[in-house]
């Protein structure tokens, strides 16, 4: 009872495999997708994404927004900001905040 899940980010195709169940952090609450879902389009909030296969959790991601499209037993997730929860480190995010802050300063400097 599996369907194809494709996770695409601007940098790469993060995942493309057959799965049984995906739980998305939808904008109006979490929702799970199984096989033979009707055509569906929604977007996501910041949260956790769980992927199950053979009744086991095989992977989870931390995701900051994205768009989910489901049609013909194919589920596509487009997201700009996704991290495997195994690789998630608070420090990376703090670094990124610092980087963005310093960019703001240098922008004003140039203008």
């Amino acid at each position: 009872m599996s369907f194809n899940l494709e996770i695409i980010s601007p940098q790469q195709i993060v995942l493309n495999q057959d799965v049984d169940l995906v739980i998305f952090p939808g904008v109006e609450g979490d929702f799970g997708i199984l096989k033979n879902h009707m055509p569906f389009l929604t977007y996501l909030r910041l949260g956790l994404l769980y992927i199950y296969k053979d009744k086991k959790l095989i992977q989870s991601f931390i995701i900051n927004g994205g768009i989910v499209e489901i049609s013909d037993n194919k589920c596509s997730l487009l997201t700009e900001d996704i991290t495997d929860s195994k690789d998630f480190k608070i420090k990376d995010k703090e670094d990124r905040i610092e980087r963005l802050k310093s960019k703001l300063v240098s922008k004003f400097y140039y203008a």
Partner: protein
Amino acid sequence: MPSLKDLRNRISSVKSTKKITSAMKMVAAAKLKRAQDNAEKTRPYAKKMGEIVDSLVKNTKNQNFKFGEKKENKKNILLIICSADRGLCGGFNSSIIKFSKKLSKENAENGYNLNYIFVGKKAYFSLKKNCKDSIIDYFSDIANPSIKFELASLIRDKILELFLKNSIDECHLIYTKFNSAISQTVQSMQLLPLKNIQEDNIEKKSQSYDFEPDEEVILNEIIPRNIAIQIHTALLENLASEQGSRMTAMDNATRNANDMIDNLTLFYNRSRQALITKELIEIISGAEAV
């Protein structure tokens, strides 16, 4: 006529120039490969996003969503000009600058106000005198070490803010489309407002989606993302074009340096021979005179 020493110096200086240009060519070729790879990696995302937006906009019933054409006369136009941070890449920067100047002139003649956002140093430094007060923003060093998606989002946020505040009525992105390593074309792409979609292939796969929360909210969520990815792909194409252009320019320069070295060496040998012959004649005629 230059002395032999002058010629020798000249040859060695051309040789060292040749070394630099051929090294730059090699570096550009490596960077081009990487830039092309990056551009290709973005393609699936852009393609999927395009498909979703297409099928959405085709099936939508409400025609007056907020990123569409405005009813009032357009007055303010925003140009986003993407160029390189460095020179020595043939006609790459100058063709962007020329194109931008032409476009600005046409629009100014039609009575529109122009605003600018610059990405990349070269166009900024050569155009900033012409458009002092109308520069909204300027970004540089974007490809160091690689183009981040954050930058595209940043530009997107900026233009959407201006568009929704009615500060601008139209937004164009000027960049160089990468055809191949030796051919690139400067072109402009309209980001905002969204063009009215052609109704020719409307029957093609018109799925009726279930929306959550509803169609309009999703449209307003998805269109900014689509704009960001358009900007991002344009920046990546621009980088690939820059490297391709630099590669060909440096290839030409290396070839020209080779020709120059050949000519100079020939000239050098000739004058050396002439000098020897002259000295011999002097000695022989001196000996005959004795």
